C-alpha cells in the first residue's frame, strides 16, 4: 500500500523556497524576490519510493507567525487547524545560508506548534564564497531537529532531504521556546483558563483577527474568567516575544554560526549605487522597460507570422482536400482560425514572462518598488502596487490576484480597480495588427514608428491607471495608514529552470483558461455568421442575382456579393448592424461592431473575430492582416485608416473588455459593486476617448 506524507514548505521570502519546491516536484511554481508573490497555496507531489508519496504544499513566504495579512491566513488555517485536510505531517522550513538568524525566528515559532519540523538550509553552495561556517551537529541538537544542507541551484542535498522526510516519525515534535517567559502572569492566567490547550497555539489564536476558525476564537472571547486584553497590550507582548526569541537565537548562533566579514562581496553596494541612484536608477528602469517592449515587438512577430500562415495553409488544404459541406466549413473557417487565434499569443506571453521572471528573480523588482514608492503613494497607490501594475502588462487576472500582498485595503482596492488599464498581453495582438496596418514602417533615430506607437500605448495605459487612481483616492475612504516594509534581497542570477517553468506555467494557464473561451467564441461566431433569420439570409442568392440581373458581372464577383449579403443578414451581421449607429462616430463599421461585441469576453477575440468574419465565404485564404487591409468602405477607402485605427487602439486601451477580469475583481473585492463600477467607468471613458480621437484625426 502506498502511504502519502503531507509536507508543508515554509520560509522567509527570497530564500529560494520556490526553487526547492521546483526541484522536489518538478511542478510549475514561480520564484520571485518580491515578498508575497507566492500568495496562492501551491501543491505538488513526488514519490520517494514505491510505497511513499509526498504531497508538498508551498506556503506563502513569511517572516513570522505574528504578521497579520491575508497571506498569513493561509498559513494559519493549515498549521493550526488539525481538521484541515492538508494539515501537514511535517513542516520543512527553508532558510538560506546568509539569513539563518531571521529564518530561525520562523523556525522556532513553527517548532512550538508541536508539528515535526525539518530545517533545510538552501544555497549551501555559497557557504565557502560567503565565508560562512555552521556547526550543524550542535545546531541540530539545540534546535531539537534534523538539518539538511541543500542547494537548489546545484541540485544538491535533495536525496538526504527526501530521506529525512521518509523517516519523519523519528523527528521530535516538542516545542523549544517557553512562551511563559514573555509574560508570566498573562500566560499563567491563560493556561488556567484553558488547561487542555497548547499555550502557544492559544496565543496565536488570540492574536489573529482573521476568522479562519470562528468557533475557537469565540470560545476564548466568551469565557468570562479570561480577561481579554487591548490590542496595544497584545502587540507589546508580540514585540516582547520577538525580542525574547531573537535573544535565544543570538545565543544559539554565537556557538554555531560564524561569518568571515572579509569575504563579504560588494556586489550589492556597487549595483545599488547605480540602480538606486536618484537619476540613473530611474534612467535604467525606463531603459529596461523600453528594451523589453522593443524585444517583444521584434522577436514575437516572426513566430506570430509563422503561426498565422501555417494555419492559413492548413485551412486551405482542409478546404481543398475534404468534400465540401458544413463540416469542412466548420473545420476550415471556425475551428482552425479559432485555434490559431489562441496559439498566436504564445510568443508574446512567453517573452513577457521571461522578462518579468528575470526582473523578479534577480532582486531588481524590489529596487523598483523602493524607487517608485513615493511617486505611487502620491496617487493613492503603494510601492507594492508596482508589481501588480507591471504584472498587469501580462494579464490583469494574476495582477489583481497579486494585490493581496498590499496590506492596506484602500491601496489594494485602488490597485485592483486601475490594473485593467495597464496594457495586458491580450491587447497586444489587437495593437500589433492595427499598428502594422495603419502606422508606417519607417524609422526615426533607429527606432521604428511602429514600436514607438506601441510604447506610447503602454505609457498611455500606465498614465490612465495613475490618473484614475488619483481620482479614486479622493472617493475611497480609509482610516489605516499604509506601510512599506520591504526586504531588499541580494542580487542573484536567475535560475534557468525557474524562469522556464514560470514561462511554461503562465503560457499553459493562458492556453487553458483564456484559450477555451477564445476557442468557444470562435466556433459560436462561425455558427452565428453562417446562419441567419428571415428570407434575406435564406434567399441571398436569389436577391443578389436579381439586383445584378441587368448589370454585367463575373461569376466570381457575384458570388462575393452574395456572401457579403449573406453575412450582413446573418445573426451576427444583424447584431453588429444594430450597434452601428452608436459606433460609426468612432469610425467603425458593423463588422468591427461584431468584433467589439464578441471581444467583450476577452480582447484578443477581436482579431479572431475579424479573421472569422472576413474568411466566411472568402475563397482566397489570405492572412488576417491582408484581409483587414483590403476591407473597404462603400466609397472604396480603407476601413482601417490612421484615424479609425488609432480610435480602435484607444478604445481597447481604456475599455474593460474582459469578462475574466470582472470575475476576478468580484472575487477579490467580494462584491459586485466594484467590478460594475469598473465596467461602466471604463466603457464610457473608452467610448468618448475614441470618439474624440477619431473626430480630431478624420
Amino acid at each position, binding site marked *: 500500500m502506498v502511504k502519502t506524507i503531507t509536507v508543508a514548505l515554509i520560509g522567509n521570502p527570497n530564500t529560494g523556497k520556490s526553487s526547492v519546491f521546483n526541484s522536489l516536484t518538478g511542478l510549475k511554481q514561480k520564484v520571485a524576490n518580491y515578498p508575497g508573490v507566492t500568495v496562492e497555496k501551491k501543491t505538488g507531489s513526488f514519490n520517494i519510493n514505491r510505497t511513499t508519496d509526498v504531497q508538498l504544499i508551498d506556503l506563502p513566504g513569511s*517572516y*513570522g507567525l*505574528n*504578521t*497579520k495579512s491575508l497571506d498569513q491566513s493561509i498559513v494559519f488555517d493549515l498549521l493550526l487547524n488539525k481538521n484541515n485536510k492538508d494539515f501537514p505531517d511535517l513542516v520543512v522550513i527553508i532558510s538560506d545560508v*546568509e*539569513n539563518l*538568524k*531571521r529564518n530561525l*525566528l520562523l523556525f522556532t515559532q513553527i517548532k512550538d506548534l508541536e508539528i515535526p519540523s525539518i530545517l533545510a538550509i538552501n544555497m549551501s553552495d555559497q557557504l565557502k564564497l560567503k565565508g560562512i561556517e555552521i556547526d550543524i551537529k550542535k545546531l541540530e541538537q539545540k534546535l531539537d531537529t534534523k538539518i539538511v544542507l541543500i542547494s537548489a541551484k546545484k541540485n544538491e542535498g535533495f536525496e538526504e532531504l527526501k530521506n529525512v522526510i521518509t523517516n519523519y516519525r523519528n523527528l521530535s515534535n516538542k516545542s523549544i521556546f517557553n512562551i511563559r517567559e514573555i509574560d508570566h502572569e498573562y500566560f499563567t492566567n491563560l493556561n488556567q483558563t484553558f488547561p487542555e490547550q497548547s499555550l502557544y497555539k492559544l496565543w496565536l489564536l488570540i492574536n489573529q483577527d482573521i476568522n479562519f476558525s470562528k468557533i475557537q476564537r469565540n470560545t476564548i472571547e466568551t469565557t468570562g474568567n479570561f480577561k481579554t486584553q487591548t*490590542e*496595544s497590550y497584545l*502587540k*507589546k507582548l*508580540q*514585540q516582547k516575544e*520577538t*525580542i525574547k526569541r*531573537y535573544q535565544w537565537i543570538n545565543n544559539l548562533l554565537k556557538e554555531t554560526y560564524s561569518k568571515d566579514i572579509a569575504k563579504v562581496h560588494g556586489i*550589492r553596494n556597487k549595483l*545599488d549605487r547605480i540602480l*538606486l541612484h*536618484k537619476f540613473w536608477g530611474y534612467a535604467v528602469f525606463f531603459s529596461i522597460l523600453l528594451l523589453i517592449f522593443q524585444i517583444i515587438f521584434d522577436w514575437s512577430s516572426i513566430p506570430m507570422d509563422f503561426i498565422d500562415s501555417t494555419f492559413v495553409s492548413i485551412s486551405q488544404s482542409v478546404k481543398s482536400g475534404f468534400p465540401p459541406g458544413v463540416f469542412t466549413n466548420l473545420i476550415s473557417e471556425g475551428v482552425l482560425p479559432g485555434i490559431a487565434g489562441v496559439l498566436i499569443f504564445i510568443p508574446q506571453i512567453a517573452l513577457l514572462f521571461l522578462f518579468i521572471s528575470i526582473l523578479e528573480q534577480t532582486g531588481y523588482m*524590489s529596487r523598483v*518598488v*523602493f*524607487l517608485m*514608492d*513615493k511617486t505611487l*503613494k502620491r496617487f493613492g497607490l503603494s*510601492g507594492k502596487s508596482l508589481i501588480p501594475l507591471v504584472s498587469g502588462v501580462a494579464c490583469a487576472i494574476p495582477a489583481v490576484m497579486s494585490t493581496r500582498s498590499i*496590506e492596506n485595503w484602500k491601496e489594494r482596492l485602488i490597485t485592483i480597480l486601475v490594473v485593467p488599464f495597464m496594457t495586458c498581453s491580450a491587447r497586444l495582438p489587437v495593437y500589433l495588427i492595427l499598428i502594422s496596418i495603419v502606422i508606417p514602417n519607417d524609422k526615426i533615430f533607429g527606432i521604428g514608428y511602429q514600436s514607438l506607437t506601441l510604447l506610447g500605448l503602454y505609457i498611455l495605459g500606465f498614465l490612465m491607471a495613475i490618473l484614475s487612481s488619483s481620482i479614486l483616492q479622493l472617493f475611497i475612504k480609509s482610516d489605516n*495608514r*499604509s*506601510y*512599506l*516594509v*520591504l*526586504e*531588499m*534581497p*541580494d542580487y542573484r542570477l536567475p535560475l534557468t529552470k525557474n524562469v522556464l517553468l514560470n514561462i511554461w506555467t503562465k503560457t499553459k494557464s493562458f492556453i487553458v483558461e483564456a484559450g477555451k473561451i477564445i476557442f468557444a467564441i470562435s466556433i459560436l461566431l462561425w455558427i452565428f455568421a453562417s446562419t441567419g433569420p428571415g428570407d434575406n439570409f435564406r434567399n441571398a442568392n436569389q436577391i443578389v442575382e436579381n439586383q445584378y440581373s441587368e448589370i454585367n458581372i463575373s461569376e466570381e464577383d457575384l458570388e462575393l456579393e452574395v456572401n457579403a449579403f449573406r453575412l450582413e443578414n446573418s445573426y451576427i451581421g444583424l447584431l453588429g448592424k444594430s450597434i452601428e449607429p452608436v459606433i460609426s462616430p468612432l469610425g467603425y463599421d458593423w463588422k468591427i461592431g461584431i468584433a467589439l461585441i464578441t471581444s467583450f469576453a476577452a480582447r484578443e477575440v477581436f482579431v479572431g473575430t475579424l479573421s472569422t468574419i472576413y474568411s466566411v465565404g472568402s475563397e482566397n485564404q489570405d492572412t488576417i492582416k491582408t484581409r483587414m487591409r483590403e476591407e473597404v468602405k462603400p466609397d472604396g477607402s480603407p476601413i482601417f485608416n490612421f484615424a479609425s485605427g488609432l480610435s480602435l487602439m484607444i478604445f481597447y486601451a481604456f475599455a474593460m473588455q474582459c469578462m475574466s477580469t470582472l470575475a476576478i475583481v468580484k472575487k477579490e473585492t467580494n462584491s459586485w459593486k466594484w467590478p460594475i463600477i469598473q465596467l461602466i467607468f471604463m466603457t464610457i471613458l473608452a467610448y468618448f476617448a475614441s470618439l474624440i480621437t477619431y473626430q480630431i484625426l478624420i
Partner: protein
Amino acid sequence: MIGLNTLKKGDRAIIKDILIDQVPLALMEMGCLPGNELLILGLASKKGPIYLKVDQSHISIDIITASKVLVELK
C-alpha cells in the same frame, strides 16, 4: 532620541524604542528591534523610503514608519 527618518545616508544608529502600535510587526520580525544597530544605506528621494541594514537584514521602509522608530546616533 531622534526619529529614524531624520538620519542621512551613511549614518549609524542604535534603535532605542519603537512605537509598536504604529508599525507593522514584520518590521520587528526582520530584526528591527530595540538595542540593534542600523546603518542607513540610501534614501530614495526626499520623503521617499529609507534603505537600511539592521541585524543582517536589508530592508526599505517608508518615511512615516521610519519616524516611529526612535534611534540614537552612534
